[in-house]
């Protein structure tokens, strides 16, 4: 019983190794994200070589807003709220340009944010591994993570909206049918579109900021304990 209690209080050897393992894992993921950002950036600057004979699939996912499909009479016969489809197309220079100037920058944004997040997490776990869990530096790191998530949620919502709009415009121009005409597009100024476009990262950011307050109170308790002689 005494040994079990000692183990419970001191933690297993796995618990002791966890911060070091997490630190290495996040360092590796941060490098991988930076590499991805570099690849996306190169694709924007250099541009992929399009092969007119190549055929590839484009995944379409319009997560919010309405897509009205009208028949020849003009009245909407089908209202699609959200669209997810796989469109087979031959290599189209315009589609390649779309990917290069709209989707690749979103990829750079994502990859850079993930690199920043993984680096902050690496530093956080380094501090925890050294026993400095409740220090001003750790609290600062947790706050940076929270604010980064909030900022990323807002910026990525706008970026994704523009990229999705560009794709929708492309589809409206290039996808047609004798019986149907694409109609309607998402209004970027619509408040409901903006609200529904905000990713869960916004809520996670708020949660992490609340956690930083817990760390701050932990620091106060630790300080009180250290200064109790």
């Amino acid at each position, binding site marked *: 019983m005494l040994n079990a209690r000692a183990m419970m209080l001191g933690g297993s050897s796995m618990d002791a190794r966890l911060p070091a393992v997490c630190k290495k894992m996040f360092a590796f993921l941060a490098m991988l994200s930076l590499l991805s950002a570099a690849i996306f950036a190169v694709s924007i600057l250099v541009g992929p070589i399009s092969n007119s004979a190549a055929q590839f699939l484009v995944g379409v996912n319009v997560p919010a807003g309405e897509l009205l499909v009208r028949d020849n009479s003009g009245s909407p016969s089908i209202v699609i709220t959200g669209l997810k489809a796989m469109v087979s197309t031959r290599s189209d220079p315009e589609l390649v340009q779309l990917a290069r100037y709209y989707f690749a920058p979103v990829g750079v944004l994502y990859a850079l944010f993930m690199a920043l997040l993984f680096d902050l997490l690496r530093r956080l776990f380094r501090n925890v591994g050294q026993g400095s869990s409740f220090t001003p530096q750790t609290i600062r790191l947790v706050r940076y993570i929270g604010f980064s998530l909030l900022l990323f949620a807002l910026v990525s919502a706008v970026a994704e909206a523009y990229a999705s709009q560009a794709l929708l415009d492309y589809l409206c121009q290039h996808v047609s049918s004798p019986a149907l005409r694409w109609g309607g597009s998402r209004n970027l100024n619509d408040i409901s579109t903006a609200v529904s476009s905000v990713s869960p990262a916004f809520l996670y950011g708020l949660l992490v900021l609340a956690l930083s307050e817990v760390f701050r109170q932990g620091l106060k308790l630790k300080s009180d304990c250290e*200064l109790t002689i």
Partner: protein
Amino acid sequence: MAIKLNLDRVMLDRRMSLTELADRIGITLANLSILKTNKARAIRFSTLDALCRELNCQPGDIIEHVPGPQAADGEV
């Protein structure tokens, strides 16, 4: 904080050094220095008991209340 420790005065009266007192009551020199310079936020009864025993004094000889402006919550 309005609570002041007069440890240095009592130590001078008893002709005792910081190092000797720290060894006798079983706390580190750093912690005794924190007490002496009034940086401590709290003192355990066991520590107060050891101080009074080794310095042969009463708690009131070491601890003094000096009325002054109240510090904000969380401040010393």
